[in-house]
């Protein structure tokens, strides 16, 4: 067992974990932060996306021990109390979700995208969101929500 200390959504967490424990398993099963979803478990769908030291990464393809000492933000750490983050609000307003399963990953990836590129073009959004799959195929409104959250008029609106 390895002893790790991480800062998760602003709170210090210390735990003993197996070297092979995946970050997503630790978040969901040890900390019960079940907003981070497992869609494919094979680094493809992006439902498990979280921020690690400010970068969107797939938590199904990272070991907890690799994250030791780092800062993590999950979907649970995005809203301020009852007030949604502007990107979450935009997903709500523009109906950027259908079944909602991919939404936590979409929002986390979108946050990273907008932090690094505050006014992305539609093409940039589509390219940068390639690692997040929506099985309802609701991509258009997801792109619209990210455009709206960046203060731009969504395409087709």
């Amino acid at each position, binding site marked *: 067992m*390895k002893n790790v200390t991480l800062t998760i959504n602003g709170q210090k967490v210390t735990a003993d974990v*197996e*070297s*092979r424990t995946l970050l997503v398993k630790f978040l969901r099963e040890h900390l019960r932060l079940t907003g981070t979803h497992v869609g494919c*478990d*094979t*680094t*493809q769908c*992006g439902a498990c*996306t979280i921020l*690690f030291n400010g*970068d*969107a*990464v*797939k938590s199904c*393809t*990272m*070991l907890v*021990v*690799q994250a*030791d000492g780092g800062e993590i933000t999950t979907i649970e750490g995005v809203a301020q109390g009852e007030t949604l983050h502007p990107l979450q609000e935009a997903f709500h307003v523009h109906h950027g979700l259908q079944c909602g399963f991919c939404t936590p990953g979409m929002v986390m*990836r979108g946050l*990273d*995208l907008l932090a*690094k590129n505050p006014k992305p073009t539609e093409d940039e959004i589509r390219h*940068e*969101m*390639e*690692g*997040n799959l929506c099985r309802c195929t609701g991509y258009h409104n997801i792109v619209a929500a990210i455009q709206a959250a960046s203060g731009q008029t969504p395409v087709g609106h």
Partner: protein
Amino acid sequence: MYEFDYHRAASVADAVAELGRVSDSKVLAGGMTLLPTCKMRLAHPSELVDLGAIAALKGIEITDAHVTIGAMTRHADVANSAALKAALPALCVLAGGIGDAQVRNRGTMGGSVANNDPAADYPAACLGLGATIVTDRREVAADDYFQGLFATALEDDEIITAIRFPRPACAAYVKFKNPASRYATVGVLVARFNDGVRVAVTGAGSDGVFRASDIEQALSADFSPAAASAITVSPDGIASDMHGSAEYRAHLIPILAARAVGACR
């Protein structure tokens, strides 16, 4: 995943010592291939030696003649480096097309080059630009480094520390990507130097990345898209799978080379 131990290396020397000490240990860079492989139980290392905390392995250094990139520099850092966009933009374009954004936030140049996946992008950059693979103990020319599918000149306990690229007059990488994985169905890197043109092809060779010498000769004589597309590539030695036949891939090589010539800057 099978059980394994984990060692966070403090330095390259520490990592090499650990690899020597523990049998069946394996280097962990970004983990974008190794961890999925472990999850599918296709790999069963006794210990992962993580290079993630070694700051000396990260960074981009640019001189008049060369670009040197630390082995643990992530694809996202290569893709977004303003200095590199000015010095060797082909490398930024290539890195920005690897996998997806989350993969680019973890995956590293050294990890990709050490793994030598036959459909990976960086091997084409190394071979096409005539890079030098710098390890903890020696320097290996890219022409001698890539030795077949997932095979390289690296010893079991040898660690890539950096990759040094000569700066070409111009270069471009064009990829016909698998739309699901974004690996190269075929990827071609064209680099023009004062003393000739190098063309490397990934995704297509049944033995991994290779140089397209006929196209190199044609482009060294006449650096134009038409000169590249006039070449016919034989499907012998070209890979065939569910994503494309050998004939299809062979057909794509001169087409992508021609597009790369047009995109060279």
